[in-house]
């Protein structure tokens, strides 16, 4: 079948969306942006294809007369199994890379100790992997780098201590290797991994039956043809696409938000390094936009620094901040000094949740200024970008929107991080249809 791909190469994450001819979203994929844009695009697209397969599975299964609860349970199990397969594959790759690293001269004098330590770390990692993907388990993030990274660091600390090795050393081996692993384009056949996952599910006996297997096989048989691709995002200038395949992220975000909520008139997007306020008309056409200036204070990356500083996952920040009753007043949102400010205030005895709540408020205050610059908020208002996933940020935003613009509809889609990619995919679909609407090729 024909598919249309939109890729949003953000400063922090790269997102891909696959649309079908009926403008239905087939799949979404995300990965962290990295030094190699090409790889990031490929990984994100592949993730979107994987997601699309699950959509197709669901469609195939749904067309039969299976019990929907059962189907969902099966698909859930299949997805976990698939993710585990993927994880283990990457883990093996990482281990190989790590072991190669320590062959270098820098490690020669340390002898076999390091190699043994690394093998031990990975043994433990593999051992606990299934638990990470057990039903109901929460993971620090969905990216290999983050999951593997945080566990590696924790395990390595103990292993290093036991082996009498410097912890910094193991840390460094990891840092070096993860880059290599991340920048290797995805390899291997997807269908192999699906089959391996199927096998795993069969073993686990989750009520899978032959109808299910056949449906999955049928869905796997459908060919996904990449008809047209449009790229957008921060890395747009360096995107590995030619000019007619590129649209400005402003237009994509505007259009994407319009597709999710056709009544949208104002869009706020807070990404990793930029915050945008966009006004669109009833057709999703951009009327006005403003972005943060050259200072990246108060963008998503700011939360990243804070999370690093607190050794927490990004998605844990919001819930903690929600516990605050009395947000601290924080005036500087300089991303780089965020950590220092945090320490300063902790040292003064302020509570973690209050500081965090204050930091979230500070980010939203800045975003409010950018919206104000772009012309304020008119009904409806749609919040997109990675930070829209953060409930504490959303809470502050809602409060401030009401205070400043009255009761307007505020839309936040759980998939809001894909807004730009969705818009890009729609541009791709229109381009393929020869409707080069609004944008010159």
């Amino acid at each position, binding site marked *: 079948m024909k598919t249309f791909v939109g890729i949003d190469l953000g400063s922090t994450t790269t997102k891909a969306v696959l649309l079908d001819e009926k403008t239905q979203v087939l799949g979404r994929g995300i990965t962290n942006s990295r030094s190699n844009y090409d790889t990031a695009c490929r990984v994100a697209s592949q993730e979107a294809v994987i997601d699309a397969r699950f959509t197709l599975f669901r469609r195939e299964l749904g067309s039969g007369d299976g019990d929907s609860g059962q189907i969902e349970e099966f698909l859930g199990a299949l997805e976990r199994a698939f993710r585990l397969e993927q994880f283990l594959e990457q883990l093996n790759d990482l281990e190989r890379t790590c072991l190669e690293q320590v062959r270098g001269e820098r490690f020669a004098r340390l002898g076999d100790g390091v190699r043994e330590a690394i093998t031990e770390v990975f043994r433990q990692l593999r051992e606990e992997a299934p638990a990470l993907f057990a039903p109901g388990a929460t993971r620090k993030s969905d990216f290999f780098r983050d999951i593997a990274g945080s566990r590696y660091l924790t395990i390595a600390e103990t292993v290093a201590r036991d082996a009498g090795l410097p912890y910094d050393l193991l840390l460094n081996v990891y*840092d070096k290797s993860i880059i290599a692993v991340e920048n290797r384009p995805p390899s291997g056949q997807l269908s192999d991994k699906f089959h391996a996952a199927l096998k795993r599910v069969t073993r686990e006996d989750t009520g899978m039956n032959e109808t299910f297997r056949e449906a999955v096989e049928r869905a796997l048989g459908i060919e996904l043809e990449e008809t047209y691709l449009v790229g957008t995002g921060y890395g747009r200038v360096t995107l590995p696409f030619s000019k007619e395949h590129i649209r400005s992220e402003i237009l994509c975000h505007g259009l994407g938000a319009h597709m999710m909520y056709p009544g949208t008139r104002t869009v706020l997007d807070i990404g990793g390094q930029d915050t945008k306020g966009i006004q669109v008309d009833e057709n999703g056409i951009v009327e006005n936009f403003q972005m943060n200036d050259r200072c990246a204070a108060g963008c998503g990356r700011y939360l990243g620094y804070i999370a690093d500083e607190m050794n927490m996952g990004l998605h844990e920040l919001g819930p903690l901040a929600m516990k605050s009753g009395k947000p601290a007043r924080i005036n500087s949102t300089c991303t*780089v000094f965020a950590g*220092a400010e945090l320490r300063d205030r902790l040292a003064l005895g302020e509570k973690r949740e209050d500081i965090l709540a204050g930091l979230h408020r500070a980010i939203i205050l800045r975003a409010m200024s950018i919206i104000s610059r772009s012309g304020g908020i008119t009904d409806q208002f749609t919040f997109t970008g990675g930070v829209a996933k953060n409930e504490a940020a959303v809470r502050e935003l809602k409060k401030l929107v009401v205070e400043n613009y009255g009761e307007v509809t505020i839309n936040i889609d759980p998939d809001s991080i894909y807004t730009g990619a969705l818009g890009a995919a729609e541009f791709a679909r229109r381009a393929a249809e020869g409707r080069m609407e609004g944008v010159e090729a």
Partner: protein
Amino acid sequence: MTLAAGIDVGTGAVKTAIFRVGDGKEEWLSRATLRIRQRDPMELAREAFERTLEDAGLKEEDLDYIATTGEGESIPFHTGHFYSMTAHARGAQFLNPETRAVLDCGALHGRAIITDERGKVLKYKMTSQCASGSGQFLENIARYLGIAQDEIGKLSLQADDPEAVSSICAVLAETDVINMVSRGISAPNILKGIHLSMASRLARLLKSIGVGNSLVMVTGGLAKDEGLVAAMNEELAKIKGVDAKVISHPDSIYAGAIGAALWGAFRFDKLAASGQLLKAS
């Protein structure tokens, strides 16, 4: 004989030192350094301090003066506090008596200090607001490149065509660097580029406080980074009317702790002489 401890609580690490001072001698008994990694610095300070005591074979009550510096103002067991530039100037003087200027390069701020032969601060200046030239930034980039702290300097020295980092902001500079990697710029050239941009900021600081042709000692966390020291010398050489030379010392990282301890001893003796005896803790 006066026994004094110096505790330097930084943003990157806690450093401690114990000195015995008297008869015109300054004897360095023990030292410790602990990186602050997601741990309460005050706890770490205690831990480092205990270790230093143990190494010196002393007990807390043996000490005449416990001096803090850096962010150690709120350490409960201190006798007195010296501001960090006061301490670094004295510490650098101890490490090399020829020193007439100090460049303290820490995790977030750079500080340039002009001193006299007694370690007296004559003039100084700190880097402002923006953090793109900070140790923290370099550290982030190095981690991103997969390079260990102690490799940075050596790699930077191998650069043949350093790539300038243009951004004023550390966050944007991070993107710059990511772009460089994707353009195939080598790690040495990237690191050297960062070093040069940091060095140029620091050189400006030095020049603006009138460094002249002094011997400049680098202290603080980045003192070990020979790449930065080399870049500093390159940048200073470009400035007309400045003929300064930048050096480092293996113990530079302790400069703050050393200075605090020595000033502590000095203060103790002075107060003792005037009859106002102090008791540590």
